[in-house]
């Protein structure tokens, strides 16, 4: 499939640290993204362990409230911007050129830059734990007035957001351009794999909303230091205005973190069902509908801050409307499995679990969309349960599925299937032990972001904490499996999954450093 190179310098690449600092290769950069996001996942996971340690029993045991709030805030920020988003970009880097038969990403140098901005942002964000006043403690949503009152750690977070935003915008422009311009001859848009479609739409969302977040945090910065009154009523501004601007970014951001997961599922489920994806066209249209709707639902995050009833009704109905295209996807996956010759290797186990658990998260989202219900549940653990069902058992577990699915292609080795299944069952069970009880504590009225709670919530919190510790420890097993697979293992062969039909499986495993320098022709 690969042609003999004409420019020999393209095949020379420096070794050691220089290779990783200067690389323009989409596979190297994909690896960098994935390693970075794994490190951030473990760090932010460790923060969650500390949170659950404090919440193991009522009363203040280990952390002062301010430090506790730093832990929850940083857990959220790092998981979103450091773990989930870069992990998906890592998949995009590795897979999109392979899946569309492109020689690399459209802008290889910019690709390097979009990655190497992230460690700089991480230095600022994580370094804020060490400065006077500590890290941000006002929640990942960065609401004023708390974010206007904090110390230097808040400025560091704002700059980190700027740099991460730049990284996302550059990365997304690269992805969009690659998909629109570098497809192999014959691969029309309605033939590209579903994963590529979901990333095209995700990248569009990123280019549309990351600048809005940049605007929002810039206004925070000027309110903090340059005397503007954007979010101060005394000057005619409004703190609620920040929430509107933030959630105009924040809600599409939710789909930025789930659409690529849908793409991974839509790749894995057909493979292990040994059937083509059911309803490819409807899947494309559903993804696009979710993206378009995501721009007109943002205020459902703010039902309790006060808005006209007409606004509440509008945002309630548009939010419920999103259940339609999402339902289309869920039913398409089930229909793909229907009468398929299904086998349950680790990637498929994760994928099926995601369908079930994400659907639970989707339903609790519908519950929260109902204005009178939301007013009861705002800022309770019910919300925490909801977004962990969509973000952990939706996004994070899809990432795990994708890692198991493509590791053989990337490394040339099979991972250990037994250990993989152990990791799956431990993760799936511990996840439910951790987060399912939060539905109950939330319905009973336990507020989120508090280090101490009423005695009536003690049992459920202890159960959640035990589940969380198991969940956290299981991810060390994941790390072990991945490292072991990179170092060696059974040779994977060209196509370890017999049901797979995308282009990357026509290449040898591990994939050569340069691939598709001459584009394959698609029938």
């Amino acid at each position: 499939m690969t042609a003999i190179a004409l420019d020999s310098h393209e095949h020379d690449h420096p070794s050691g640290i220089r290779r990783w600092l200067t690389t323009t290769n989409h596979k190297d950069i994909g690896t960098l993204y994935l390693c970075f996001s794994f490190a951030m996942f473990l760090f932010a996971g460790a923060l969650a362990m500390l949170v659950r340690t404090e919440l193991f029993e009522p009363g203040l045991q280990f952390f002062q409230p301010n430090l506790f709030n730093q832990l929850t805030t940083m857990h959220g920020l790092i998981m979103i911007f450091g773990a989930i988003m870069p992990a998906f970009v890592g998949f995009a880097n590795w897979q999109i050129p392979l899946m569309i038969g492109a020689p690399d990403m459209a802008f290889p140098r910019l690709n390097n830059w979009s990655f190497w901005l992230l460690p700089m942002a991480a230095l600022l964000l994580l370094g804020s734990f060490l400065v006077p006043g500590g890290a941000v403690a006002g929640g990942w949503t960065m609401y004023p007035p708390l974010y206007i009152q904090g110390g230097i750690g808040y400025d560091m977070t704002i700059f980190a957001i700027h740099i991460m935003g730049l990284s996302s915008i550059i990365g997304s422009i690269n992805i969009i351009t690659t998909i629109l311009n570098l497809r192999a001859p014959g691969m029309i848009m309605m033939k590209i794999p579903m994963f590529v479609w979901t990333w095209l739409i995700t990248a569009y969302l990123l280019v549309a909303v990351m600048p809005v977040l940049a605007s929002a945090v810039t206004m925070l910065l000027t309110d903090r230091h340059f005397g503007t009154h954007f979010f101060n009523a005394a000057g005619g501004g409004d703190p609620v205005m920040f929430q509107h601007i933030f959630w105009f970014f924040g809600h599409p951001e939710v789909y930025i973190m789930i659409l690529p997961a849908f793409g991974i599922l839509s790749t894995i489920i057909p493979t292990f069902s040994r059937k083509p994806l059911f309803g490819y066209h409807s899947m494309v249209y559903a993804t696009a509908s979710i993206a378009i709707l995501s721009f007109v639902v943002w205020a459902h995050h703010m039902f309790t801050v006060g808005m006209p009833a007409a606004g509440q009704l509008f945002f309630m109905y548009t939010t419920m409307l999103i259940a339609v295209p999402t339902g289309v996807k869920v039913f398409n996956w089930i229909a793909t499995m229907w009468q398929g010759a299904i086998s349950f290797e680790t990637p498929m186990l994760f994928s099926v679990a995601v369908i079930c658990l994400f659907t639970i998260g989707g339903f609790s989202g519908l519950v929260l969309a109902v204005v009178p219900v939301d007013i009861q549940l705002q800022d309770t653990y019910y919300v925490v349960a909801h977004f962990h069902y969509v973000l952990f058992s939706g996004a994070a577990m899809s990432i795990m599925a994708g890692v198991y699915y493509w590791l053989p292609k990337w490394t040339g080795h099979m991972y250990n299937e037994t250990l993989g299944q152990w990791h799956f069952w431990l993760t799936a069970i511990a996840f439910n032990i951790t987060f399912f009880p939060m539905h109950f504590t939330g319905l009973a009225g336990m507020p989120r972001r508090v280090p101490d709670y009423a005695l009536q919530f003690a049992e459920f919190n202890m159960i959640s904490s035990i589940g969380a510790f198991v969940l956290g420890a299981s991810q060390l097993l994941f790390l072990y499996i991945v490292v072991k697979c990179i170092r060696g293992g059974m040779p994977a062969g060209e196509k370890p999954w017999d049901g797979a039909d995308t282009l990357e499986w026509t290449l040898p495993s591990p994939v050569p450093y340069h691939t598709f320098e001459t584009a394959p022709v698609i029938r």
Partner: protein
Amino acid sequence: MDTSRYYLPAPSWWPIVGSVALLTLASGFLLLLQRMPAGSYLMLAGAVILAVMLFGWFGAVIREGIAGRYNGQVDVSYRWGMSWFIFSEVMFFAALFGALFYARYFAVPWLGQASLLWPGYNSTWPTAGPGSLASFTPMAAWGIPAINTLILLSSGAIVTWAHWGLKKDNRLQLKIGLALTILLGVIFIALQAYEYFLADFSLKTGIYGATFYMLTGFHGAHVTLGVIMLVVILGRVIAGHFSEKRHFAFEAVSWYWHFVDVVWLLLFVFVYWL
């Protein structure tokens, strides 16, 4: 030169240099915000590193372009890239305009209705908010801003005229057009600075001052960037770069110039006029 395949650049140091530059800039700014004078030196260092990176990186791209390494497909990539970059800029300004509209049509009228909280507050735009006692004169539309509108619109027409010159390989028309565009851009910035100098309100003058200076300030920064890019293009034209067929760098900068033009029109209507 084989251009049958898509050009893939060799490993490059420029991106990591750019990352270091931004981290240095951010760290310097952080120190300045803490009133530490070392911050300005750090920021200066960051700016220098950034400038080196921009020269080095764009220089490499220009050399590759002249060497004929880019085929038509690479050209299309650059077009998509620039279009989406401008779209991201549009969204950045959209958020600031959103803040302006929200303040004018929701936040300020609601403050006026809160008679218990802010008795006697006259919630008409422009306002510095109920907590402010200072009075100020809002910027009138039909003085300098109207002249600036004329200047920027005609500069947009002239840059297109320059483009026609390039397409006909009339280098003189191209050079005159570009130089005139740059001149008009500089006059625009100068008039804008003069307007800031005349203003009796500041960034701190409530929501009016905040939205006014943030919107016009970011726009002014973009015009400045546009002028710098136009100067680079003029330098390249004088150095004999570009052909009638292949001159995307010129087109990209003119797209950018039209973009700042359109943003200005919206500014003129919604910030100055209405």
